[in-house]
């Protein structure tokens, strides 16, 4: 469903993505990991065109992201995205956060949008907070609302950009639980994360990046069992030793 082939990107003269290629099939969950500054976030932001790239092609459901003729807003509306810092709209209530894009982008009837929002809020276990503002919720709750907001658009795939790195440790699990449930429902997901437990549990494949390169792209069991590259081995030994 998502094909990334030979993507390179520069910030000025600094190359941040080097010839990256990978593929995500429908219903597949792919975890992207690697040291900070390795280009993971940049790579998934290229998938929905939030970051432009200079070389290579990315296609989502047959539509080329880098093509000038592509209607990016229309494509983005079909790809859900969850950010490290939640990025809920702080001036709107939780309910309005969930309904706004459904109404303004998809042209849904406000009532239908509301209903959909409430259903999803229930699914992430936050029905009681519908009328609150994002600032009144904890980080974990905000991130669950953000996931619900993305799901409200009925996306064909979901991108997660370090969804738990800004959370207090005791809130990480509530967010991961929602993501695990989503993966088990068959959602196509690309998840940038350091949560190796999550990767082990639900990922079909793990992509390891370092210095803008995809160093390893292997089925989950292989990645944790016998990573081929030295850099991936080192990375794993560092984050798994505790």
């Amino acid at each position, binding site marked *: 469903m998502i094909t990334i082939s030979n993507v390179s990107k520069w910030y000025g003269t600094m190359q941040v993505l080097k010839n990256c290629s990978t593929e995500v099939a429908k219903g597949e969950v792919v975890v992207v990991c690697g040291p900070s500054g390795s280009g993971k976030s940049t790579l998934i*932001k290229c998938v929905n065109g939030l970051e432009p790239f200079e070389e290579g092609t990315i296609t989502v459901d047959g539509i080329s992201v880098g093509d000038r003729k592509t209607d990016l807003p*229309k494509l983005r*509306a079909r*790809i859900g995205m969850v950010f490290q810092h939640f*990025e809920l*709209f*702080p001036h709107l209530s939780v309910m309005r956060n969930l309904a*706004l894009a459904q109404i303004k982008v998809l042209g849904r009837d406000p009532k239908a949008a509301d209903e959909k929002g409430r259903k999803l809020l229930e699914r992430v276990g936050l029905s009681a907070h519908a009328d609150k503002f994002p600032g009144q919720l904890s980080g974990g709750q905000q991130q669950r609302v953000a996931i619900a907001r*993305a799901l409200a658009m009925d996306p064909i795939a979901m991108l997660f950009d370090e969804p738990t790195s800004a959370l207090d440790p005791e809130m990480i699990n509530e967010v991961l639980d929602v993501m695990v449930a989503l993966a088990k429902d068959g959602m196509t997901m690309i998840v940038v994360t350091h949560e190796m437990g999550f990767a082990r549990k639900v990922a079909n494949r793990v992509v390891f990046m370092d210095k803008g390169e995809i160093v390893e792209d292997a089925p989950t069991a292989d990645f944790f069992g016998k990573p081929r590259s030295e850099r991936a081995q080192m990375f794993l030994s560092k984050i798994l030793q505790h």
Partner: protein
Amino acid sequence: MFANFDWDVILRSLPYLFLDGMRFTIMLTLMATGGGIVIGTLLALARLSNIPGLSHVAGAYVNLIRSMPLVLVIFWFYFLVPYIGQWITGASRPIQVGAFLSALVTFTLFEAAYFCEIMRAGIQSIPRGQVQAAQALGMTYWTAMGEIILPQAFRNMVPVLLTQTIILFQDTSLVYVISVTDFFGAASKVAQRDGRLVEMYLFAAAVYFVISLAASHWVRRLQHRVAIIR
């Protein structure tokens, strides 16, 4: 010292001062603020856009206006607008627009430059992630601006915008140069007619002071009420 003062002149001219003068001052202030914020916001969007040329044009306009004394601009517009009107409509004689319209256009366009800089700061204060979140949900530039960025920028900037409005309220007194009767103009006329300069100018100063002070207190209180919970 105050024995020779005739404070009664104030009482006698109150209806004229407030119903004619102050009404004009407040109308001009409110209309110029409204128009200035709308045009200023558009200018800010132009300054921040990456369409080649557009940001330069807007920037040049803002810098030009901000480097000119207001009195000069008022004067200029008053004498120039009729000719511009003639040029645009192709009429045979300069279009008479009247002092009020001329003043309103001047203040709107002048304040727009200042409101532009305020709104630009407001827009830039919104984290980039908010723009990305709006885009990721499929919103177009205008939807993202209208629903997400501008409402937040505006609320963040309300105190500054209103402070600028208070300055504008004081600046409207400059319309006396084109002989328009605003509050200050009215006070000035009465002062000269009745030879009571000190009384009237003291009174005018007191009125400007009280209104501006009250308004800035109100702005400070409002500041807490409109703040977005984060």
